[in-house]
């Protein structure tokens, strides 16, 4: 979660958006975090660098919770 928050904040910092202090499962990547498709592409690549998984590979990922679920799947599986 902390690593994910760091990645999200790095993208927000580059866009001049304020830092997010707490990350919640129901946060919408587009509406709450202000990410457009280019940002989402960047997010997937940065997550892939960190965790070795493409979270957008199969199916739609809308919220922070969706991303975490994908990451947990890898950790458990």
């Amino acid at each position: 979660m902390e690593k994910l928050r760091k990645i999200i904040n790095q993208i927000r910092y580059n866009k001049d958006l304020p830092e997010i202090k707490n990350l919640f499962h129901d946060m919408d990547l587009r509406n709450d975090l202000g990410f457009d498709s280019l940002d989402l592409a960047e997010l997937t690549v940065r997550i892939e660098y960190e965790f070795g998984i493409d979270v957008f590979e199969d199916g739609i990922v809308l919220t922070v919770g969706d991303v975490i679920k994908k990451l947990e799947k890898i950790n458990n599986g």
Partner: protein
Amino acid sequence: MDKIFFYDPLTDKLISYKIFLDHLNNLNHLEKIVYHSDFYEIFLRIVSSILYNQPIILLDYNLTDFEIKELLGQINLKDTVEIKFKKVFNEEDIKNLRSYAKNWEIILFTSGTTGLPKRVSHSFENLIRAVKVSEKHKDDVWGLAYNPTHIAGLQVFFQALLNQNSIINLFNVNRNLIFELIERFKITHLSATPTFYRLLLPVEKKFTSIKSVACGGERFDNNLKLHLQAMFPNAKIINIYATTEFGSLFASDGDAFLLKKEYENLVKIVDNEIYVHKNLLGKSVEINLVDDFYPTGDQVEVIDEKPLKFKILGRKNEMINIGGYKVNPLEIEEALNSHPCVIMSKVYCKTNSVLGNILIADIKTNSEINEKEIRIYLSKLLNSYKIPRIININVNDEISITRTGKLKRR
């Protein structure tokens, strides 16, 4: 002291024209395939093959056994021909090399940055089309900054040899030594890729012996021209368009090329791509022609229709698709390189499930700067989809280059 033919700091060989002729006159065999790491050995074999009119295959020493097998099939690299009737050559014979090369041909391979190297064969005339021999050139000293197993290196070699100039090897030589050699041998002429020159930056010093600086093989931009003018204040800066398939074709003093009248019907632009007529190509080339024209894969921006004036934008197959937008990595590199802190950059893509591809930039800087500052700078120059989303700053010590000295993109 005898005139220097070649000096190579990598082997520490200093060869005069006199010694070179001695070596030529003492050969007993000719190699059919040249595969050597030592540039002098390569030159010796090329010239002897011309003097004895024996076709030759030139292989880059970086090619692996596997690649050679793919290119030539099962062959004996050490295959030689005995010299039955030995002749004694002198300096005049070197000057008149052309008269010996009637049926001579040389087989080369493209650098293969985009796949397996392609085989191209050239006649002597074709190879030296851009070579100028005159009194004016007799005291030129050449810095060899290209691999001599590829066309650009061969052209430098023949330009120097036919004018009996000294050649100093700078290819694969580190930058401090390059600077030292330019001063020590008072090098007057350089011909290299833009990447070669960018790797020399930043340079405080000025090199006044250099009279001519040629760039080729990659896109030239005016920002590089400014750096070159500062580094070589007495030099004429020339941008050359050439490919392995047909040698040098156009030259200009900036990033735009004007088509010479004699090439009017031999060069055309189709869908912003340069097409070159087969008459300008090497002898036999394994390529597909479209109505006798060869599609070069080089994309241009046409500035004027008649006479044709254009700028090279990049390679067709280097275009990157970002969410449906075509992006030219060279355009982005040029924008990055225009930042005062950036010495060199490489832009490439990584596949991605959201947009197909995402742009990544590796940059080398001369002072501290962060990713955000670069992005803000780029946003003033480029559309948002053209801005690299991941910028690695000074992560890789060396931005890798291909065996012909170009920036490696894959």
